């Protein structure tokens, strides 16, 4: 976990890159340069599982932003009083608290969605993105910029999920957010896209597109990870 989260911070020169503490830079790196799903390939369990519908993807994105911002804020606030040896447990406790809060809110106001997402809300606890950012960023940065980092990574995750969810729902059912957009006279929905194989293939292609758009040498680094 710790070693998986840290490579994001190795690449940038101290004081200038995303780790330097500039708000806008931090946000940009979370969403684009070191996008947690497409570039670092973290937290993909839920990225694959909930993207069969766009609506699920959006709710999951909101969950990640909420938990990410909250966790990073509190880990950062407590960073000087947390003993080094038990920091992992402390981080897990903070993450679990925010996940429980989100899960309870979802259950109270949005029961249908809570049923659809099933165990994947609870699984945010073991989502490498949240833990990785707390470990790699919030533990050594001031609270405000840590919150921005949580927001950036949460948004980066949310954007990727929304893209995958959009295409899987469109191809698989011919609709977007439940509204039929592709007419059934000429379009036969390809059920495979909403089933498990569609998720793997969609994410595979998305990562490949990201690789092609960003740096070509990124792929070698990924292969050796």
């Amino acid at each position, binding site marked *: *976990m710790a070693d*998986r989260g840290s490579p994001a911070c190795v690449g940038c020169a101290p004081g200038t890159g995303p780790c330097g503490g500039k708000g806008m830079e931090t946000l940009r790196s979370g969403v684009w340069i070191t996008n947690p799903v497409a570039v670092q*390939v*973290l*937290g*993909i*369990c*839920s990225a*694959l*599982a909930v993207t069969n519908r766009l609506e699920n993807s959006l709710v999951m994105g909101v969950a990640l932003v909420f938990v990410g911002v909250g966790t990073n804020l509190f880990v950062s606030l407590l960073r000087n009083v947390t003993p080094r040896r038990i920091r992992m*447990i402390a981080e*897990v*406790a903070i993450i*679990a*608290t925010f*996940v*429980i809060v989100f*899960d*309870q809110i979802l259950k109270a106001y949005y029961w249908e969605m809570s049923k659809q997402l*099933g*165990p994947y809300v*609870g*699984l945010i*606890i*073991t*989502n*490498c993105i949240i*833990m990785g950012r707390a470990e790699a960023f919030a533990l050594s940065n001031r609270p405000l910029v840590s919150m921005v980092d949580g927001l950036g990574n949460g948004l980066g995750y949310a954007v990727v999920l929304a893209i995958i969810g959009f295409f899987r729902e469109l191809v698989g059912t011919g609709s977007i957010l439940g509204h039929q957009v592709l007419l059934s006279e000429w379009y036969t929905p390809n059920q*495979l896209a909403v*089933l*498990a*194989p*569609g*998720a*793997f*293939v969609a*994410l*595979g*292609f998305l*990562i*490949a*597109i990201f*690789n*092609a758009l960003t740096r*070509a040498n990124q*792929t*070698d680094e*990924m*292969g050796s*990870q």
Partner: protein
Amino acid sequence: MGEISPFVILIAAIFTNNILLANFLGMCSFLAVSKEIPTAAGLGAAVIFVMTATTAINFGVYHHVLVPLGLVYLQFIVFIAVIAAFVQFVEMFVERFSLHLYHSLGIFLPLITVNCAILGVSLFMIIRKYTFAQSVAFGFGGGVGWTLAIILIAGLRQKMRYSDVPRPFRGVAIAMIITGVMAMAFMGFAGMVRIQ
């Protein structure tokens, strides 16, 4: 869910509802260790053991502690604490009694705490309202299914080292796509047994 026999759940968890290929659990460590067959088998063995045991423990904790006390909403934090404590205990136990096993299995144990498959199985057990026998069968079958998938993919990835993959697809992207093909192959089992 009371009427399904544990054996059916065991078979279903391995083939038709494979925890990795159908429920996407345990993807993080899956990508990291599915490059060599021996490593994959080592982690797989550790996952089977921990998953079976923690599912049984979590079943007891949930039904005999959390439900009577009305603390069901704390299930996430309690489950992850049980898993972390159990893994820690196993690690100490193995280190003390079998150094050989510690060297082949021990290095994977810390990875398992954060393996979402372990927590996921416990959460599915609650959502699907399994009985104790069904839960243990589901935990064991889930572990075997995960191990089967990861070993199969590791074999494919070993072969793939010699193939000329288009540049942007190298690494994780092509691994995802072959996992998708594997998931498609496993859908061939679909008619065999059915849970949920």
